[in-house]
């Protein structure tokens, strides 16, 4: 049983019997903390449902007197994002979707193949290779961002030349493609780690038997390992999805203006210095930006926690 399973599935099975007063204190503290963790989200939701004068002139803990969904439609379709011409965050939301789907799929598939090779087809030096790939998980992205900017700039120029020659840039220089490349590369460490640890515990006898039956490298992967990988695929997909959707540093560096992902657009919306600050619209936009990852957490919290723990302590 992994460390995360201990958190998510085992019910409390011990602990000394406490007196009535102690139990009240324990429950009181737990309830108080739950409130502290919940209140910012509740305030966000309530603020997004109030007209602006009620936000600026009222108590943030008060329930909306004039319930309105106008801030939500403003945020989605009309709000001004920085200096961009495009109105509303909807375009940026879909930028993020277009970036996150291919990046998650590619990095997960590569991680699965890498984990398969590193555990079931290991070769001399496989530990060193894995150790070196693991380091990719932990570098501060500041230390790779300048070279990345240079390389992506070069790819962009190649793309322009290709477009002149053939009429198509092959995606080179496209901000979404750039971000997919970046997120796949810097996600490889984690996806490889997840699948390597999972496949290490997979019985080698099954694979040996398949080899004797003449199954090829890819047949074994597709027919034997993949059908048995559902839990780790879910963990990896959730982990990568959350990380890539929530990324800001790469998005703000490599995708400017209309091509920016959701987090960057939200930051531009909230931190514009011009005009009246529309707190209610900002909060609606923030909730929309948080919705996909929150939804994943609500639906598959168990796997979510497992991924985090595996990324931290390799439980």
């Amino acid at each position, binding site marked *: 049983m992994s460390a995360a399973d201990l958190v998510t599935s085992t019910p409390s099975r011990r602990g000394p019997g406490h007196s009535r007063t102690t139990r009240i204190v324990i429950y009181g503290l737990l309830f108080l903390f739950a409130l502290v963790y919940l209140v910012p989200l509740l305030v966000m939701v309530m603020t997004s449902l109030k007209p602006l004068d009620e936000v600026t002139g009222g108590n943030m803990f008060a329930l909306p007197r004039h319930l309105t969904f106008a801030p939500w439609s403003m945020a989605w379709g009309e709000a001004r994002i920085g200096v961009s011409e495009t109105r509303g965050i909807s375009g940026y939301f879909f930028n993020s979707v277009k970036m996150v789907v291919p990046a998650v799929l590619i990095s997960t598939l*590569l991680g699965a193949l*890498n984990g398969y090779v590193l555990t079931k087809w290991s070769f001399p030096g496989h530990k060193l290779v894995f150790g070196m790939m693991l380091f990719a998980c932990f570098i501060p992205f500041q*230390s790779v961002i300048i070279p990345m900017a240079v390389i992506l700039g070069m790819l962009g120029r190649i793309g322009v030349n290709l477009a002149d020659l053939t009429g198509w840039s092959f995606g080179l220089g496209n901000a979404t493609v750039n971000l997919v490349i970046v997120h796949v590369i810097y996600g490889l460490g984690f996806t490889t780690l997840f699948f390597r640890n999972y496949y290490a515990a997979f019985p080698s006898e099954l694979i040996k038997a398949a*080899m004797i039956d003449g199954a090829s490298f890819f047949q074994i992967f597709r027919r034997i390992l993949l059908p048995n990988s559902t839990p780790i695929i879910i963990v990896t997909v959730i982990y990568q999805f959350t990380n890539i959707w929530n990324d800001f540093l790469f998005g703000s560096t490599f995708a400017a203006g209309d091509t920016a992902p959701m987090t960057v657009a939200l930051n531009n919306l909230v931190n514009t210095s011009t005009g009246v600050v529309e707190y209610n619209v900002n909060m609606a936009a923030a909730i929309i930006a948080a919705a996909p990852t929150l939804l994943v957490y609500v639906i598959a919290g168990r796997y979510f926690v497992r991924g985090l723990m595996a990324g931290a302590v390799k439980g």
Partner: protein
Amino acid sequence: MTAMTEREAATAMARRKLGPSLRGWFQDWLPRLVLAPSFLLVLVFVYGFNLWTLFLSFTSSKAFPTTNLVGFTNYVRLWNWTFETDPPSNWYTALVNMGLFGGLYIFFCLFLGLLLAILLDQKIRGEGILRPIYLYPLALSFIVTGTAWKLFLDPRIGLENALHEWGWTSFHFDWVVDPQMMIYCVAIAGIWQSSGFVMAMFLAGLRGVDGEILKAAQIDGASTYQTYRRIVIPIIRPVFFSALIVLAHMAIKSYDLVLSVTGKNPGGAAELPSTFMYSYTFTRNQMAVGSASAVIMLMTIAAIMVPYIYSETREQSR
């Protein structure tokens, strides 16, 4: 090792069927060919790029990278800035803030994480409802977290205003708009976001402690406090270590949280090494200085992570 015998078995199979043909050779090398692209990508984009940044830190690059080497000049500048306190240099502010933010963030995440884990481990009814509440902030991006806390702590419409409306008119809390105190608000938002995760790590540790030991302690008449203080916490010491490493790593990498809580870090008041690196490289046209600061960040993280990864992988193979 079983893995080797598997490979040998496969190779033998391939040989038996195909002989020492090109196809046999291909079958033999196929796994390595599958791994190669990923490994090459990491080699170039992680190791190569780090070396590239290291190289840039020894050049005189301004807005664009150059190859004009200037030795340790950029590091000497950072070193001098480290002691430039009046008026404080951006680098000095970044280091002081890193200490404040990192210290508070790590301490309170560990403290709250352990406290919540111990409280939850007391045969609590409704644990299944409480646990996800402590953990959900982790699903939010730092930008969303920062946006929420910026509103929550805003004195005009947030906490201060709310308490004034409720009659506590002397209450005063404007740190989020006070350049001197902003960094503490970044720490508050960070602690709110990450302490649930530390709670989960500690809870896993606590649930892994053998119940028999605790029963024995109880029979010997140890109080709950004594049991935790003398028995449980020493047993779960490795969890402290893991959590400490993870938190230190996250603190050094923190970037988006500062921008969103403070509203793009006005005047560099909440500067951290990460924001320092970004602004020197991309807005102040001092790419070489930015690179040098990035190298220092990388070195610090490597000093924390490399021994940790080494010990973790060693433990696994044992």
